[in-house]
C-alpha cells in the first residue's frame, strides 16, 4: 500500500512497517541535496515530529515523521551520497523504516491519486 502526506513524503506500508521517503515533486523542489541527517534507530517519534533534515546548496528543510512510530532502520546510503535522493527518490533514496504504533493510522493518509491532484 502506497500513501502520501501533505508534506510530500511517501510511505510504502507492509504490515505495520512503513518505508518512508520524499516524493519526486519534493526532491525536484529542493534541488540537489548536499546533506542528509537521519534519525536514530530506536527513536520513537510522534506524527509531525522532526525525523530528518535535508540540505540543498541554498537551504535546510525538515522531513517530518508521517505517523507515530519507532524508527527501525535508516538508509545510510543517502547520508553517504545525498544525490541518491534526487536521482531515485522513491527507490534507492528512501529515508527510514518506521514501525507504526497503529497500523490502521495509515488509512487517513492520501493515496497516489489524491496526492497527484494536490500537487496539480
Amino acid at each position, binding site marked *: 500500500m502506497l500513501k502520501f502526506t501533505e508534506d510530500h513524503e511517501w510511505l510504502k506500508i507492509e504490515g505495520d512497517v512503513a518505508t518512508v521517503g520524499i516524493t519526486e515533486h519534493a526532491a525536484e523542489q529542493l*534541488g*540537489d541535496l*548536499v*546533506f542528509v*541527517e537521519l534519525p536514530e534507530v530506536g527513536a520513537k517519534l510522534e506524527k509531525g515530529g522532526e525525523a530528518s*533534515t535535508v*540540505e*540543498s*546548496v*541554498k*537551504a*535546510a528543510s525538515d522531513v517530518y515523521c508521517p505517523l507515530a512510530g519507532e524508527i527501525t532502520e535508516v538508509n545510510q546510503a543517502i547520508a553517504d551520497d545525498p544525490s541518491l535522493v534526487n536521482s531515485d527518490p522513491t527507490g534507492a533514496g528512501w529515508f527510514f523504516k518506521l514501525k507504526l504504533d497503529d497500523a490502521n493510522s495509515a488509512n487517513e493518509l492520501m493515496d497516489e491519486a489524491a496526492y497527484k491532484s494536490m500537487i496539480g
Partner: protein
Amino acid sequence: MDTTADLLKTPLHSLHLELGARMAGFAGYDMPIQYKMGVMQEHLHTRANAGLFDVSHMGQILIRAKSGDVRDAALALEKITPVDVADLKPGRQRYGLFTNEKGGLEDDFMVANRGDHLYLVVNAACKHDDLKRIKAALSETCEIEAQFGRGLIALQGPAAENVLSSYAPEAEDMLFMDVAEIDIAGVPAVVSRSGYTGEDGYEISLPAEETDRIARLLLDDDHVAPIGLGARDSLRLEAGLCLYGNDIDETTTPVEANLKWAIQKVRRTGGAREGGFPGADTILGQFENGASRLRVGLQPAGKAPVRAGAQLFESDSGGAAIGTVTSGGFGPSAGGPVAMGYVPATLATPGTTVFAEVRSKRLELAVAALPFVPSTYKR
C-alpha cells in the same frame, strides 16, 4: 514578504520567465533564484565556462563635479567613504565602503573613474539610502544622476573573455578592475572587468531597452548559461566576498570585517588625506590597536552545512557564544560546506577550532583562510 504584484521588474524579467526561472522577491525586485539547471550545476558551470547574471536590481549612480574636474567629485566623495577615490586613474575601478559615525558600514560599492565623472554601483537594498547619502554630502559641488532603471548584467567565468571579445574585441585587452565604454553589437555599454564570483569576467551596464537583446545575444553562445541568485551567493561565498546585510552591516567596522585592504594608506593615519570620513576616529583607532573581533573563513569539519545565524562557541559544550556565522552553505567547487563569521581576534588564526550550534548540536569548524576557492582575476 513582498507580494509578487508589488515587486519591481528588471529589463530581463520576461527573459527569466521564458527561461523557466524560479522567481522570488529580492530587494524589492522579482528576481531569478535559479533556472532549470539548478543551483549546483549553475555554480559549477560558471567556474568551468561562463554564467550570465541579471544584476539590474543594483543601483547605478553617476557623479559629475560642477567644476568639470572629476578630481573634485572624487574629493567630495571621500567625505563619506574611507577609500582613496582621488588617486583612482581614468578607466579604473575600485571597491568602496560607506561608513557611519560609529565606524560601521552603511554599504559597500564599486566606484570607477570614467574620465569626466564617477560611476558607482551600489547594493540594491541600499540604493535609495545611498542616493540620499550622496546627495546630502555632494549636492553643493556635484550633479548626481541615479540610473536605477538601467540594465546591468554580469558575464563571469573562464569563457567570459572569449564570449564578450567575439562581439567587442576591446574586452580582451581589459585587465581586472579596468572600466571602459565599448560597443557591443551596436550598443554603447559601460563594461568593467570585475564581478562577484571570484572568476574572471565582466559587468556590463546597458540602456534598459537594449539589455534584453544583448543578454540573449550572449546566451546564444554555447558556453554561456543563465545563472540565478542562488549560485551567485554560493560563488561569492567560496570567493570570500562579503554580502552586505549578512557579513557586513551598520554594526561592523571595516577593520572587524577584515577589509583593511580597501582603505588605502593615503586615508589612514599619517596619510596625505588622513581621516575625514564618518567614523574615522573609531576606524583609524582600530588600525592602530586592532579590533576585538574579526571576520574569518570557517571550514566545517563534517558534511553538514553551517548557515548564517548559527552561534559560535569555544568548546563543544557550555560556555557563552563567542560569535556568529554570517554566511554559510555548501560550496559546490569546494566540495563541502563553507562559511564565514565573526570570532574574537584571539581566535582568528587559521586552524583554530571553534564550534557552531546547529539543531542543538555543536559542530566543529576550523578558522580558515579566505578565499575557499582561488580567484582567477586577470591582472
